Protein backbone atom coordinates (compact mmCIF):
# COMPACT_ATOMS: atom_id res chain seq x y z
CA UNK A 1 0.00 0.00 0.00
CA UNK A 2 2.33 2.68 -1.27
CA UNK A 3 0.33 5.82 -0.57
CA UNK A 4 -0.52 8.19 2.27
CA UNK A 5 -3.96 9.20 3.58
CA UNK A 6 -3.44 12.63 2.00
CA UNK A 7 -2.74 11.08 -1.38
CA UNK A 8 -5.88 9.01 -1.04
CA UNK A 9 -7.91 12.20 -0.47
CA UNK A 10 -6.21 13.89 -3.40
CA UNK A 11 -6.97 11.09 -5.88
CA UNK A 12 -10.58 10.77 -4.72
CA UNK A 13 -11.10 14.50 -5.14
CA UNK A 14 -9.44 14.40 -8.55
CA UNK A 15 -11.70 11.56 -9.68
CA UNK A 16 -14.77 13.47 -8.50
CA UNK A 17 -13.74 16.38 -10.72
CA UNK A 18 -13.80 14.31 -13.94
CA UNK A 19 -15.61 16.24 -16.64
CA UNK A 20 -15.86 19.47 -14.62
CA UNK A 21 -15.34 22.78 -16.35
CA UNK A 22 -14.86 25.64 -13.91
CA UNK A 23 -13.43 24.76 -10.51
CA UNK A 24 -12.99 27.18 -7.61
CA UNK A 25 -9.70 26.27 -5.97
CA UNK A 26 -7.99 26.73 -2.63
CA UNK A 27 -4.41 25.84 -1.77
CA UNK A 28 -3.02 22.66 -0.31
CA UNK A 29 -4.79 19.38 -1.02
CA UNK A 30 -7.61 20.91 -3.12
CA UNK A 31 -5.10 22.66 -5.33
CA UNK A 32 -3.15 19.45 -5.90
CA UNK A 33 -6.38 17.53 -6.56
CA UNK A 34 -7.50 20.03 -9.23
CA UNK A 35 -4.18 20.01 -10.96
CA UNK A 36 -4.14 16.22 -10.85
CA UNK A 37 -7.59 16.11 -12.47
CA UNK A 38 -6.41 18.47 -15.14
CA UNK A 39 -3.35 16.46 -15.99
CA UNK A 40 -4.87 13.02 -15.55
CA UNK A 41 -8.25 13.12 -17.25
CA UNK A 42 -9.85 16.56 -17.75
CA UNK A 43 -7.38 18.99 -19.35
CA UNK A 44 -10.19 21.45 -20.07
CA UNK A 45 -10.72 22.25 -16.36
CA UNK A 46 -10.47 25.99 -15.79
CA UNK A 47 -9.24 26.97 -12.34
CA UNK A 48 -10.60 30.05 -10.58
CA UNK A 49 -8.72 31.24 -7.50
CA UNK A 50 -10.42 33.28 -4.78
CA UNK A 51 -7.59 35.79 -5.08
CA UNK A 52 -8.87 36.87 -8.51
CA UNK A 53 -6.95 34.60 -10.87
CA UNK A 54 -8.46 32.78 -13.86
CA UNK A 55 -6.54 30.42 -16.11
CA UNK A 56 -3.43 30.14 -13.94
CA UNK A 57 -0.37 28.23 -15.16
CA UNK A 58 1.78 28.23 -12.03
CA UNK A 59 5.42 27.34 -12.66
CA UNK A 60 5.82 26.11 -9.08
CA UNK A 61 3.61 24.72 -6.32
CA UNK A 62 1.79 27.82 -5.00
CA UNK A 63 2.40 28.58 -1.31
CA UNK A 64 -0.95 30.32 -0.93
CA UNK A 65 -3.91 31.28 -3.11
CA UNK A 66 -2.15 34.64 -3.44
CA UNK A 67 1.17 33.28 -4.69
CA UNK A 68 2.58 35.52 -7.46
CA UNK A 69 3.31 32.46 -9.58
CA UNK A 70 -0.45 32.17 -10.08
CA UNK A 71 -0.51 35.65 -11.64
CA UNK A 72 2.45 35.34 -14.00
CA UNK A 73 1.21 33.44 -17.08
CA UNK A 74 -2.51 33.56 -16.07
CA UNK A 75 -5.22 34.38 -18.63
CA UNK A 76 -6.91 36.99 -16.48
CA UNK A 77 -6.37 38.59 -13.08
CA UNK A 78 -9.13 40.67 -11.59
CA UNK A 79 -10.22 42.36 -8.37
CA UNK A 80 -11.67 40.44 -5.44
CA UNK A 81 -14.99 42.19 -5.96
CA UNK A 82 -15.24 41.01 -9.56
CA UNK A 83 -14.25 37.54 -8.44
CA UNK A 84 -17.03 37.29 -5.89
CA UNK A 85 -19.69 39.27 -7.75
CA UNK A 86 -19.23 38.26 -11.37
CA UNK A 87 -17.50 34.87 -11.23
CA UNK A 88 -18.90 33.26 -8.09
CA UNK A 89 -22.27 34.92 -7.49
CA UNK A 90 -22.60 35.31 -11.26
CA UNK A 91 -22.98 31.53 -11.39
CA UNK A 92 -19.85 30.59 -13.34
CA UNK A 93 -18.39 28.16 -10.81
CA UNK A 94 -19.31 24.52 -11.46
CA UNK A 95 -17.52 22.90 -8.54
CA UNK A 96 -15.80 24.13 -5.41
CA UNK A 97 -13.82 22.27 -2.75
CA UNK A 98 -14.38 23.16 0.89
CA UNK A 99 -13.14 21.98 4.26
CA UNK A 100 -14.06 22.69 7.86
CA UNK A 101 -13.42 21.82 11.47
CA UNK A 102 -16.89 20.31 11.91
CA UNK A 103 -19.47 18.78 9.60
CA UNK A 104 -22.94 17.46 10.38
CA UNK A 105 -25.01 14.78 8.70
CA UNK A 106 -26.44 17.23 6.14
CA UNK A 107 -23.01 18.46 5.12
CA UNK A 108 -23.24 21.81 6.89
CA UNK A 109 -19.80 23.11 7.82
CA UNK A 110 -18.25 25.01 10.71
CA UNK A 111 -14.97 26.83 10.22
CA UNK A 112 -15.66 29.65 12.70
CA UNK A 113 -15.06 28.45 16.23
CA UNK A 114 -15.39 25.71 18.85
CA UNK A 115 -17.40 26.68 21.91
CA UNK A 116 -19.65 29.66 22.42
CA UNK A 117 -19.42 32.68 20.08
CA UNK A 118 -18.92 35.17 22.91
CA UNK A 119 -16.36 32.94 24.67
CA UNK A 120 -14.77 30.63 22.12
CA UNK A 121 -12.66 27.70 23.28
CA UNK A 122 -10.85 27.61 19.93
CA UNK A 123 -11.08 30.50 17.52
CA UNK A 124 -10.92 29.15 13.95
CA UNK A 125 -10.33 31.16 10.74
CA UNK A 126 -13.99 32.02 10.01
CA UNK A 127 -15.78 32.02 6.70
CA UNK A 128 -13.37 33.62 4.30
CA UNK A 129 -15.21 32.92 1.06
CA UNK A 130 -16.63 29.59 2.25
CA UNK A 131 -20.11 30.85 3.11
CA UNK A 132 -20.73 32.28 -0.36
CA UNK A 133 -18.97 29.43 -2.12
CA UNK A 134 -21.27 26.91 -0.40
CA UNK A 135 -24.30 28.96 -1.47
CA UNK A 136 -23.34 29.93 -5.04
CA UNK A 137 -21.14 27.20 -6.52
CA UNK A 138 -23.27 24.82 -8.59
CA UNK A 139 -22.05 21.98 -6.37
CA UNK A 140 -19.24 21.45 -3.90
CA UNK A 141 -17.05 18.68 -2.51
CA UNK A 142 -15.95 18.54 1.11
CA UNK A 143 -12.40 17.45 1.91
CA UNK A 144 -11.53 16.78 5.56
CA UNK A 145 -10.07 14.09 7.79
CA UNK A 146 -12.47 11.68 9.49
CA UNK A 147 -12.49 12.26 13.27
CA UNK A 148 -15.26 11.88 15.81
CA UNK A 149 -14.82 15.47 17.04
CA UNK A 150 -15.23 16.69 13.42
CA UNK A 151 -18.23 14.59 12.36
CA UNK A 152 -20.68 15.96 14.92
CA UNK A 153 -24.38 15.78 15.71
CA UNK A 154 -24.62 19.56 16.18
CA UNK A 155 -22.26 22.18 14.80
CA UNK A 156 -20.97 24.80 17.25
CA UNK A 157 -21.48 27.34 14.43
CA UNK A 158 -22.95 27.04 10.95
CA UNK A 159 -20.52 28.89 8.69
CA UNK A 160 -21.25 27.33 5.27
CA UNK A 161 -24.58 25.76 4.45
CA UNK A 162 -24.75 22.17 3.24
CA UNK A 163 -28.25 20.72 2.94
CA UNK A 164 -29.33 22.65 6.09
CA UNK A 165 -31.88 20.38 7.78
CA UNK A 166 -32.16 18.12 4.77
CA UNK A 167 -34.79 17.45 2.10
CA UNK A 168 -35.50 20.44 -0.11
CA UNK A 169 -34.28 22.97 2.49
CA UNK A 170 -31.76 24.52 0.05
CA UNK A 171 -34.43 25.03 -2.60
CA UNK A 172 -36.74 26.69 -0.09
CA UNK A 173 -33.89 28.99 0.88
CA UNK A 174 -33.47 29.95 -2.79
CA UNK A 175 -29.79 29.03 -2.97
CA UNK A 176 -28.45 28.98 -6.54
CA UNK A 177 -26.17 25.98 -5.92
CA UNK A 178 -27.08 22.35 -5.25
CA UNK A 179 -24.81 22.01 -2.19
CA UNK A 180 -22.38 19.28 -1.11
CA UNK A 181 -22.25 16.16 -3.29
CA UNK A 182 -19.42 14.19 -1.76
CA UNK A 183 -17.42 14.15 1.49
CA UNK A 184 -13.90 12.97 0.88
CA UNK A 185 -11.92 11.81 3.91
CA UNK A 186 -8.72 9.88 4.51
CA UNK A 187 -10.72 6.76 5.44
CA UNK A 188 -14.07 6.88 3.67
CA UNK A 189 -16.28 8.55 1.07
CA UNK A 190 -19.82 9.79 1.68
CA UNK A 191 -22.52 11.14 -0.60
CA UNK A 192 -25.97 12.70 -0.12
CA UNK A 193 -27.83 10.87 -2.91
CA UNK A 194 -31.13 10.32 -1.11
CA UNK A 195 -34.30 12.38 -0.70
CA UNK A 196 -33.29 13.49 2.77
CA UNK A 197 -29.86 14.58 1.51
CA UNK A 198 -28.38 12.81 4.52
CA UNK A 199 -24.74 11.81 4.52
CA UNK A 200 -24.31 8.16 3.46
CA UNK A 201 -21.18 6.03 3.61
CA UNK A 202 -20.43 4.71 0.13
CA UNK A 203 -16.75 3.68 0.10
CA UNK A 204 -14.16 2.74 2.69
CA UNK A 205 -10.39 2.67 2.46
CA UNK A 206 -8.64 -0.67 2.48
CA UNK A 207 -8.63 -2.01 6.04
CA UNK A 208 -11.73 -0.05 7.11
CA UNK A 209 -15.27 -1.35 7.64
CA UNK A 210 -18.66 0.26 8.07
CA UNK A 211 -18.23 -0.26 11.82
CA UNK A 212 -14.78 1.28 12.03
CA UNK A 213 -16.14 4.36 10.26
CA UNK A 214 -19.29 4.45 12.39
CA UNK A 215 -17.08 4.60 15.46
CA UNK A 216 -15.78 7.99 14.40
CA UNK A 217 -19.09 9.54 13.37
CA UNK A 218 -21.21 11.06 16.14
CA UNK A 219 -24.62 10.26 14.68
CA UNK A 220 -26.22 6.97 13.57
CA UNK A 221 -24.63 6.70 10.14
CA UNK A 222 -26.42 5.66 6.97
CA UNK A 223 -24.51 3.07 4.97
CA UNK A 224 -25.02 2.29 1.29
CA UNK A 225 -26.35 -1.13 0.39
CA UNK A 226 -23.28 -1.94 -1.65
CA UNK A 227 -20.34 -0.56 0.25
CA UNK A 228 -17.27 -0.35 -1.96
CA UNK A 229 -13.60 -0.48 -1.10
CA UNK A 230 -11.71 2.54 -2.33
CA UNK A 231 -9.17 2.17 -5.10
CA UNK A 232 -5.78 3.52 -4.12
CA UNK A 233 -3.87 5.88 -6.41
CA UNK A 234 -3.13 4.43 -9.84
CA UNK A 235 0.43 4.44 -11.07
CA UNK A 236 -0.38 7.42 -13.27
CA UNK A 237 -1.94 9.37 -10.41
CA UNK A 238 0.98 8.65 -8.09
CA UNK A 239 3.49 9.68 -10.71
CA UNK A 240 1.78 13.00 -11.41
CA UNK A 241 1.46 13.83 -7.71
CA UNK A 242 4.97 12.84 -6.68
CA UNK A 243 6.95 13.86 -9.73
CA UNK A 244 5.10 16.95 -10.86
CA UNK A 245 2.70 18.46 -8.37
CA UNK A 246 4.34 17.94 -5.01
CA UNK A 247 7.91 16.82 -5.69
CA UNK A 248 9.04 17.97 -2.22
CA UNK A 249 6.28 15.97 -0.55
CA UNK A 250 4.90 18.98 1.35
CA UNK A 251 1.42 17.50 1.33
CA UNK A 252 2.36 13.83 1.62
Amino acid at each position, binding site marked *: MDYTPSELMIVNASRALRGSRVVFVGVGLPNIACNLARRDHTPSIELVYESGVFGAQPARLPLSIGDPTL*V*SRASSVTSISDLFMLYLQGGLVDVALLGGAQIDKYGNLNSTLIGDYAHPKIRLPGSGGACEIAINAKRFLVIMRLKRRAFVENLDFLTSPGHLDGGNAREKMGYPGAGPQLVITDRALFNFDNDDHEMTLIEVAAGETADSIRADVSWPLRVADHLKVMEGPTA*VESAIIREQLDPDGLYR
Partner: protein
Amino acid sequence: MKFIKSCPQFIEKVLNVLKFTIKKYVYMEAIQDIMATNNNKIITMKEAVEQYVHDGDSVAIEGFTAFISFAAAHEIIRQKRQELTLIRMTPDLIYDQMVAAGCAKKMVFSYLGNPGVGSLYAIRRAVEKGIPKPLEVEEYSHFGMVGRYIAGGSKLPFFPLQSYKGTDLPKANPLIKTVKNPYGDGEIAVVPPINPDVAFLHAQRADAQGNVQIWGLLGMQKEVAFASKKVVVIVEEIVDEEIIRRDPNRTLIPSIVVDAVVVEPYGAHPSYVQGYYDRDNAFYLDWGKRSRDLEATEAWLDEWVYSVADRKAYLAKLGKERIDSLDAGEMMAEAVNYGRYE
Protein backbone atom coordinates in the same frame (compact mmCIF):
# COMPACT_ATOMS: atom_id res chain seq x y z
CA MET B 1 -5.65 18.90 -36.86
CA LYS B 2 -9.32 18.48 -37.75
CA PHE B 3 -9.05 14.83 -36.81
CA ILE B 4 -7.66 15.66 -33.39
CA LYS B 5 -10.36 18.25 -32.84
CA SER B 6 -13.12 15.75 -33.49
CA CYS B 7 -11.77 12.95 -31.39
CA PRO B 8 -11.37 13.57 -27.65
CA GLN B 9 -10.70 9.89 -26.93
CA PHE B 10 -7.72 10.04 -29.21
CA ILE B 11 -6.41 13.07 -27.35
CA GLU B 12 -6.69 11.29 -24.04
CA LYS B 13 -4.84 8.27 -25.35
CA VAL B 14 -2.10 10.42 -26.78
CA LEU B 15 -1.79 12.20 -23.47
CA ASN B 16 -1.57 8.95 -21.59
CA VAL B 17 1.30 7.87 -23.76
CA LEU B 18 3.00 11.25 -23.59
CA LYS B 19 2.70 11.49 -19.84
CA PHE B 20 5.49 9.16 -18.93
CA THR B 21 7.86 9.90 -21.75
CA ILE B 22 8.27 13.65 -21.60
CA LYS B 23 9.17 16.03 -18.85
CA LYS B 24 7.03 18.41 -16.83
CA TYR B 25 7.06 21.56 -18.94
CA VAL B 26 7.10 19.90 -22.30
CA TYR B 27 4.12 17.92 -21.09
CA MET B 28 2.25 21.02 -19.98
CA GLU B 29 2.85 22.65 -23.30
CA ALA B 30 1.45 19.63 -25.08
CA ILE B 31 -1.73 19.92 -23.06
CA GLN B 32 -1.97 23.59 -23.79
CA ASP B 33 -1.58 23.12 -27.50
CA ILE B 34 -4.38 20.62 -27.59
CA MET B 35 -6.56 22.75 -25.33
CA ALA B 36 -6.01 25.73 -27.56
CA THR B 37 -7.00 23.65 -30.56
CA ASN B 38 -10.15 22.47 -28.85
CA ASN B 39 -11.17 25.87 -27.63
CA ASN B 40 -10.70 27.84 -30.80
CA LYS B 41 -13.81 30.03 -30.89
CA ILE B 42 -13.10 31.99 -34.06
CA ILE B 43 -16.01 32.26 -36.50
CA THR B 44 -17.12 34.79 -39.11
CA MET B 45 -19.56 37.62 -38.43
CA LYS B 46 -22.02 36.00 -40.79
CA GLU B 47 -21.88 32.79 -38.74
CA ALA B 48 -22.07 34.73 -35.47
CA VAL B 49 -25.30 36.48 -36.46
CA GLU B 50 -26.76 33.28 -37.92
CA GLN B 51 -26.03 31.34 -34.73
CA TYR B 52 -26.60 33.88 -32.01
CA VAL B 53 -29.26 36.37 -33.17
CA HIS B 54 -32.85 35.24 -33.61
CA ASP B 55 -35.99 37.24 -34.33
CA GLY B 56 -37.38 38.58 -31.07
CA ASP B 57 -34.06 38.33 -29.16
CA SER B 58 -32.71 41.01 -26.86
CA VAL B 59 -29.39 42.22 -28.20
CA ALA B 60 -26.77 44.44 -26.57
CA ILE B 61 -24.13 45.97 -28.81
CA GLU B 62 -22.24 48.05 -26.27
CA GLY B 63 -19.28 50.42 -26.12
CA PHE B 64 -19.41 53.93 -24.70
CA THR B 65 -18.68 56.22 -27.69
CA ALA B 66 -15.90 53.80 -28.72
CA PHE B 67 -15.52 50.12 -29.65
CA ILE B 68 -18.98 50.13 -31.25
CA SER B 69 -19.47 47.06 -33.42
CA PHE B 70 -21.03 48.57 -36.53
CA ALA B 71 -19.88 45.40 -38.29
CA ALA B 72 -22.30 43.36 -36.14
CA ALA B 73 -25.16 45.82 -36.60
CA HIS B 74 -24.82 45.88 -40.37
CA GLU B 75 -24.72 42.08 -40.57
CA ILE B 76 -27.86 41.87 -38.40
CA ILE B 77 -29.56 44.32 -40.77
CA ARG B 78 -28.41 42.32 -43.78
CA GLN B 79 -29.76 39.11 -42.26
CA LYS B 80 -33.08 40.98 -41.75
CA ARG B 81 -33.58 40.16 -38.09
CA GLN B 82 -36.92 41.44 -36.76
CA GLU B 83 -38.63 42.36 -33.50
CA LEU B 84 -35.36 42.74 -31.62
CA THR B 85 -35.11 44.43 -28.24
CA LEU B 86 -32.08 46.66 -28.64
CA ILE B 87 -30.21 47.33 -25.40
CA ARG B 88 -27.53 50.01 -25.20
CA MET B 89 -26.75 52.99 -22.96
CA THR B 90 -26.20 55.33 -25.91
CA PRO B 91 -28.12 54.05 -28.97
CA ASP B 92 -25.99 56.31 -31.17
CA LEU B 93 -25.81 55.96 -34.96
CA ILE B 94 -25.66 52.20 -34.65
CA TYR B 95 -29.20 51.71 -33.32
CA ASP B 96 -30.47 54.64 -35.37
CA GLN B 97 -29.47 52.57 -38.40
CA MET B 98 -30.98 49.36 -37.03
CA VAL B 99 -34.23 51.12 -36.17
CA ALA B 100 -34.28 52.72 -39.63
CA ALA B 101 -33.89 49.23 -41.10
CA GLY B 102 -36.88 47.98 -39.12
CA CYS B 103 -35.03 45.45 -36.94
CA ALA B 104 -36.31 46.74 -33.61
CA LYS B 105 -39.47 46.33 -31.58
CA LYS B 106 -38.14 47.96 -28.44
CA MET B 107 -35.18 49.89 -27.13
CA VAL B 108 -33.69 49.93 -23.62
CA PHE B 109 -31.34 52.90 -23.18
CA SER B 110 -30.21 55.96 -21.23
CA TYR B 111 -29.15 58.59 -23.77
CA LEU B 112 -30.34 59.16 -27.32
CA GLY B 113 -27.91 61.23 -29.31
CA ASN B 114 -25.46 61.45 -32.16
CA PRO B 115 -22.47 62.30 -29.93
CA GLY B 116 -21.07 65.74 -30.64
CA VAL B 117 -23.45 66.12 -33.62
CA GLY B 118 -27.13 66.17 -32.63
CA SER B 119 -30.31 64.14 -32.89
CA LEU B 120 -30.92 60.54 -33.90
CA TYR B 121 -33.57 61.16 -36.53
CA ALA B 122 -34.52 57.57 -37.37
CA ILE B 123 -35.24 56.78 -33.73
CA ARG B 124 -37.13 60.05 -33.37
CA ARG B 125 -39.25 59.18 -36.44
CA ALA B 126 -40.08 55.80 -34.91
CA VAL B 127 -40.89 57.21 -31.46
CA GLU B 128 -42.65 60.39 -32.58
CA LYS B 129 -44.41 59.10 -35.70
CA GLY B 130 -44.18 55.30 -35.75
CA ILE B 131 -42.06 55.29 -38.95
CA PRO B 132 -41.13 52.69 -40.22
CA LYS B 133 -42.92 51.18 -37.23
CA PRO B 134 -43.57 52.14 -33.61
CA LEU B 135 -40.70 51.69 -31.18
CA GLU B 136 -41.34 50.84 -27.57
CA VAL B 137 -38.88 52.52 -25.20
CA GLU B 138 -37.70 51.58 -21.73
CA GLU B 139 -35.46 54.27 -20.35
CA TYR B 140 -33.04 54.79 -17.48
CA SER B 141 -30.24 57.14 -16.61
CA HIS B 142 -26.67 56.05 -17.40
CA PHE B 143 -26.07 54.83 -13.88
CA GLY B 144 -29.36 52.94 -13.95
CA MET B 145 -28.27 51.05 -17.07
CA VAL B 146 -24.89 50.35 -15.48
CA GLY B 147 -26.70 49.04 -12.39
CA ARG B 148 -28.88 46.77 -14.51
CA TYR B 149 -25.81 45.24 -16.16
CA ILE B 150 -24.03 44.81 -12.80
CA ALA B 151 -27.10 43.13 -11.27
CA GLY B 152 -27.46 40.96 -14.37
CA GLY B 153 -23.82 39.88 -14.28
CA SER B 154 -23.77 39.20 -10.55
CA LYS B 155 -27.21 37.58 -10.21
CA LEU B 156 -28.49 40.23 -7.82
CA PRO B 157 -32.27 40.68 -7.70
CA PHE B 158 -31.76 44.47 -7.88
CA PHE B 159 -29.10 47.15 -7.84
CA PRO B 160 -29.47 50.18 -5.52
CA LEU B 161 -28.47 53.71 -6.57
CA GLN B 162 -28.93 57.28 -5.29
CA SER B 163 -30.78 58.39 -8.43
CA TYR B 164 -34.38 58.92 -9.60
CA LYS B 165 -36.02 60.14 -6.37
CA GLY B 166 -38.01 63.28 -7.13
CA THR B 167 -37.79 62.87 -10.91
CA ASP B 168 -40.38 61.72 -13.47
CA LEU B 169 -38.28 58.72 -14.55
CA PRO B 170 -39.95 56.16 -12.22
CA LYS B 171 -43.35 57.30 -13.57
CA ALA B 172 -42.18 56.74 -17.13
CA ASN B 173 -40.59 53.42 -16.22
CA PRO B 174 -42.33 51.40 -13.48
CA LEU B 175 -39.37 48.97 -13.36
CA ILE B 176 -37.57 51.63 -11.34
CA LYS B 177 -38.61 50.82 -7.77
CA THR B 178 -37.46 51.58 -4.24
CA VAL B 179 -36.37 49.57 -1.20
CA LYS B 180 -36.15 50.66 2.43
CA ASN B 181 -32.78 51.25 4.00
CA PRO B 182 -32.59 48.77 6.89
CA TYR B 183 -29.82 50.82 8.56
CA GLY B 184 -31.67 54.12 8.84
CA ASP B 185 -34.41 56.28 7.46
CA GLY B 186 -35.50 56.59 3.92
CA GLU B 187 -35.63 54.60 0.75
CA ILE B 188 -33.28 54.13 -2.14
CA ALA B 189 -34.08 53.59 -5.81
CA VAL B 190 -33.33 50.20 -7.34
CA VAL B 191 -33.24 48.83 -10.88
CA PRO B 192 -33.74 45.18 -11.90
CA PRO B 193 -31.07 42.95 -13.47
CA ILE B 194 -30.78 42.71 -17.23
CA ASN B 195 -29.52 39.63 -19.10
CA PRO B 196 -29.41 40.22 -22.86
CA ASP B 197 -29.82 37.12 -25.03
CA VAL B 198 -26.63 38.07 -26.81
CA ALA B 199 -23.98 40.78 -26.60
CA PHE B 200 -21.60 41.97 -29.31
CA LEU B 201 -18.49 43.61 -27.86
CA HIS B 202 -15.63 45.05 -29.87
CA ALA B 203 -12.07 45.04 -28.49
CA GLN B 204 -8.46 45.47 -29.51
CA ARG B 205 -7.36 41.86 -29.22
CA ALA B 206 -8.04 38.39 -27.90
CA ASP B 207 -6.56 34.93 -28.08
CA ALA B 208 -8.43 32.22 -29.99
CA GLN B 209 -10.14 31.06 -26.78
CA GLY B 210 -11.61 34.49 -26.20
CA ASN B 211 -9.51 36.04 -23.47
CA VAL B 212 -10.09 39.67 -24.40
CA GLN B 213 -7.83 42.65 -23.74
CA ILE B 214 -9.12 46.21 -23.92
CA TRP B 215 -7.47 49.53 -23.14
CA GLY B 216 -8.79 53.05 -23.46
CA LEU B 217 -12.40 53.66 -22.46
CA LEU B 218 -13.56 50.49 -20.73
CA GLY B 219 -17.22 51.50 -20.84
CA MET B 220 -19.38 48.73 -19.42
CA GLN B 221 -17.98 45.99 -21.67
CA LYS B 222 -17.01 43.75 -18.75
CA GLU B 223 -20.36 44.00 -16.99
CA VAL B 224 -22.26 43.33 -20.23
CA ALA B 225 -20.11 40.30 -20.98
CA PHE B 226 -20.90 38.74 -17.61
CA ALA B 227 -24.59 39.70 -17.83
CA SER B 228 -25.31 38.31 -21.29
CA LYS B 229 -26.42 34.77 -22.06
CA LYS B 230 -24.22 34.60 -25.17
CA VAL B 231 -21.21 36.78 -25.90
CA VAL B 232 -19.64 37.46 -29.28
CA VAL B 233 -16.39 39.40 -29.13
CA ILE B 234 -15.14 41.22 -32.20
CA VAL B 235 -11.43 42.05 -32.30
CA GLU B 236 -8.98 44.03 -34.37
CA GLU B 237 -6.56 41.13 -34.14
CA ILE B 238 -6.07 37.66 -32.73
CA VAL B 239 -2.88 37.33 -30.76
CA ASP B 240 -1.04 34.35 -29.42
CA GLU B 241 -2.19 33.18 -26.02
CA GLU B 242 1.26 34.03 -24.70
CA ILE B 243 0.79 37.77 -25.37
CA ILE B 244 -2.37 37.70 -23.28
CA ARG B 245 -0.70 35.71 -20.51
CA ARG B 246 2.15 38.18 -20.29
CA ASP B 247 -0.28 40.88 -19.09
CA PRO B 248 -3.24 39.16 -17.40
CA ASN B 249 -4.48 42.36 -15.72
CA ARG B 250 -5.22 43.75 -19.19
CA THR B 251 -7.75 40.94 -19.80
CA LEU B 252 -11.09 42.65 -19.24
CA ILE B 253 -13.26 39.77 -20.46
CA PRO B 254 -12.14 36.21 -19.66
CA SER B 255 -12.79 33.37 -22.10
CA ILE B 256 -15.10 31.76 -19.54
CA VAL B 257 -17.92 34.08 -20.65
CA VAL B 258 -17.09 34.28 -24.36
CA ASP B 259 -18.93 32.09 -26.90
CA ALA B 260 -17.42 33.28 -30.15
CA VAL B 261 -14.62 35.47 -31.45
CA VAL B 262 -14.91 37.36 -34.74
CA VAL B 263 -11.84 38.94 -36.29
CA GLU B 264 -12.88 42.16 -38.01
CA PRO B 265 -10.24 44.88 -38.38
CA TYR B 266 -11.85 48.34 -38.49
CA GLY B 267 -15.08 46.63 -37.43
CA ALA B 268 -15.93 49.55 -35.15
CA HIS B 269 -15.69 52.20 -37.90
CA PRO B 270 -16.95 54.99 -37.86
CA SER B 271 -16.39 54.84 -34.07
CA TYR B 272 -12.82 54.29 -32.94
CA VAL B 273 -10.54 51.79 -31.26
CA GLN B 274 -7.89 53.23 -28.94
CA GLY B 275 -4.45 52.93 -30.50
CA TYR B 276 -5.80 51.42 -33.73
CA TYR B 277 -7.79 54.19 -35.43
CA ASP B 278 -9.61 57.44 -34.86
CA ARG B 279 -13.30 58.27 -35.10
CA ASP B 280 -14.43 59.07 -38.65
CA ASN B 281 -16.31 62.24 -37.80
CA ALA B 282 -17.36 62.91 -41.41
CA PHE B 283 -19.42 59.74 -41.19
CA TYR B 284 -21.22 60.98 -38.07
CA LEU B 285 -21.91 64.34 -39.70
CA ASP B 286 -23.06 62.70 -42.92
CA TRP B 287 -25.50 60.44 -41.10
CA GLY B 288 -26.65 63.46 -39.08
CA LYS B 289 -27.56 65.17 -42.34
CA ARG B 290 -28.94 62.32 -44.43
CA SER B 291 -30.95 60.64 -41.67
CA ARG B 292 -33.23 63.69 -41.36
CA ASP B 293 -34.94 62.52 -44.50
CA LEU B 294 -36.59 59.10 -44.78
CA GLU B 295 -35.59 58.47 -48.38
CA ALA B 296 -32.04 59.64 -47.88
CA THR B 297 -31.83 57.33 -44.87
CA GLU B 298 -32.92 54.36 -46.92
CA ALA B 299 -30.50 55.31 -49.67
CA TRP B 300 -27.73 55.38 -47.07
CA LEU B 301 -28.63 51.90 -45.81
CA ASP B 302 -28.72 50.67 -49.37
CA GLU B 303 -25.34 52.16 -50.16
CA TRP B 304 -23.45 51.19 -46.99
CA VAL B 305 -25.23 48.06 -45.75
CA TYR B 306 -27.38 46.18 -48.25
CA SER B 307 -25.05 46.69 -51.20
CA VAL B 308 -21.94 45.53 -49.39
CA ALA B 309 -21.56 41.82 -48.75
CA ASP B 310 -19.53 42.05 -45.59
CA ARG B 311 -17.04 44.19 -43.67
CA LYS B 312 -14.29 43.54 -46.20
CA ALA B 313 -16.47 44.99 -48.95
CA TYR B 314 -17.37 47.91 -46.69
CA LEU B 315 -13.69 48.70 -46.12
CA ALA B 316 -12.98 48.42 -49.83
CA LYS B 317 -15.75 50.90 -50.47
CA LEU B 318 -14.40 53.20 -47.76
CA GLY B 319 -11.04 53.20 -49.51
CA LYS B 320 -7.47 53.08 -48.33
CA GLU B 321 -6.99 56.82 -48.23
CA ARG B 322 -9.90 57.41 -45.89
CA ILE B 323 -8.85 54.54 -43.66
CA ASP B 324 -5.29 55.82 -43.53
CA SER B 325 -6.55 59.26 -42.54
CA LEU B 326 -7.85 57.71 -39.32
CA ASP B 327 -4.38 56.65 -38.19
CA ALA B 328 -4.02 56.86 -34.40
CA GLY B 329 -0.30 57.58 -34.26
CA GLU B 330 1.98 55.89 -31.79
CA MET B 331 2.22 56.40 -28.04
CA MET B 332 3.33 53.21 -26.37
CA ALA B 333 2.70 52.31 -22.77
CA GLU B 334 5.76 51.48 -20.71
CA ALA B 335 6.00 47.69 -20.30
CA VAL B 336 5.82 46.41 -16.72
CA ASN B 337 7.46 43.38 -15.13
CA TYR B 338 5.26 40.59 -13.71
CA GLY B 339 8.21 38.45 -12.61
CA ARG B 340 8.77 34.78 -13.36
CA TYR B 341 8.27 33.20 -9.92
CA GLU B 342 9.55 29.79 -10.94
